[in-house]
């Protein structure tokens, strides 16, 4: 073997990856080759020099990352809230319709006089007929019947006017009704998942992953290396209410415990606020 070929083994020796036979042969070669001894010595010194000088990153690195993460989290939250509000409004709308239908002796058909024009205004003539004959008198308050029909007879487009004035009335009422009755927000934690508190993401874990626990504890340490005050212990799977999650603060430590019965694993990983 030439000296050049021994370089791979010298490098392997520095990393401790040579097989025993290779080490033996390398030792014999080094004993008789001062040049390779010098090479090994220099490589060792270079490795030490590279590894020993660790620079501290500038403070802006953490600041910028956290700022961007926070901005994105807030954006996500805003989006979630807007979805939630839309959902609540829609739910309240249906509740109101159902309630109205149940309370009224004629059931849901009692709304027909109000809603019917919306579907039947095909022609100005028909619209005029419908308004005159079937309109609910309470809906036309403040507007003279004559003026409505004169507008409606002028153009088919004008038939949309009554719909636009009638429709928002119940919708607005429902939204304000919905905001009063915000349901308790429950965030589901599926089995084998990581729940990222601020990021609102659920990440599946592999339960049979051998290195799961050490890594999770490593992540835990990373998140809470600065301070830890209260310790929360979360066991098993299930649901965690918003109130329970809100009790966990960024300064707190969260312990991760697998469910002993079904071996399912649940983790709450809180990012900094």
């Amino acid at each position: 073997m030439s000296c050049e070929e021994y370089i791979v083994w010298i490098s392997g020796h520095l990393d401790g990856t040579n097989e025993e036979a290779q080490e033996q042969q390398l030792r014999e070669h080094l004993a008789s080759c001062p040049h390779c001894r010098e090479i090994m010595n220099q490589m060792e010194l270079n490795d030490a020099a590279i590894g020993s000088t660790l620079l501290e990153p500038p403070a802006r690195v953490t600041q910028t990352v956290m700022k961007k993460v926070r901005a994105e989290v807030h954006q996500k939250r805003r989006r979630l809230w807007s979805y939630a509000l839309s959902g609540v409004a829609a739910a309240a709308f249906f509740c109101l319709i159902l309630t109205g239908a149940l309370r009224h002796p004629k059931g849901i058909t009692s709304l027909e006089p109000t809603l019917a024009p919306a579907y039947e205004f095909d022609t100005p003539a028909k619209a005029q007929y419908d308004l005159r004959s079937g309109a609910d008198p309470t809906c036309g308050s403040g507007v003279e019947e004559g003026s409505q029909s004169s507008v409606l007879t002028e153009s088919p487009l004008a038939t949309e006017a009554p719909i636009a004035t009638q429709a928002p009335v119940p919708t607005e009422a429902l939204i304000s009704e919905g905001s009063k009755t915000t349901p308790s927000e429950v965030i589901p934690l599926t089995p084998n998942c990581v729940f990222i508190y601020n990021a609102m993401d659920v990440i599946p874990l592999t339960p049979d992953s051998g290195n799961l626990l050490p890594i999770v504890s490593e992540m835990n340490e990373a998140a809470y290396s600065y301070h830890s005050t209260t310790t929360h212990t979360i066991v098993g799977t299930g649901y965690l209410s918003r109130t329970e999650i809100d009790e966990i603060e960024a300064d707190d430590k969260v312990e991760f415990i697998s469910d002993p019965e079904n071996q399912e694993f649940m983790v709450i990983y809180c990012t900094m606020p």
Partner: protein
Amino acid sequence: MLQYQTPVYNLCYRMLGNQEDAADMTQEAFLKAWKYLNSFHFESAFTTWLYRLATNCCLDLMRSQKRRPTISMITEGEDGEEQTLEPVDPSLQPDQILIKKEEQQQLQDALMELDKEQRAIITLRVVNDLSYADIAKLLKIKEGTVKSRLARARENLRKNILQKRNKFHSPASKNEEGGLP
């Protein structure tokens, strides 16, 4: 983040050769980690995954710049003043500190003369202490290739450093490159 930022930053710094780019790529790597955390399925250690993101960020930057990064141990501090990269051993005498800084500069210069794959492999092994298996996964090469490339990287680095020292101590001297017999 505090736990990982120093090794990630040093990985980026050794690969890119200047602090500004290293800080940018460290940020980039952490933001990607946060964004794609749900794609991390514990198939490798979290650190290996993070280093992979950082390495890819650096390689992408080098590819996009298509240039050798500026090599400098002198950098601008946060207050805008020039400062020399630390740390050096505070127990050293001023003349020893100067020599140490000079050596560090030579080392970084020599490192930057390696091609980017060799620079990545030596940094991941020596700075970040990754195993051959992890490096192989990270760079998508075989473990045997890691061993041979690492040996070549160390040898090239050694030759580069010798060349620089020879130039520094004797500018006229052109011989002695530490070649093999």
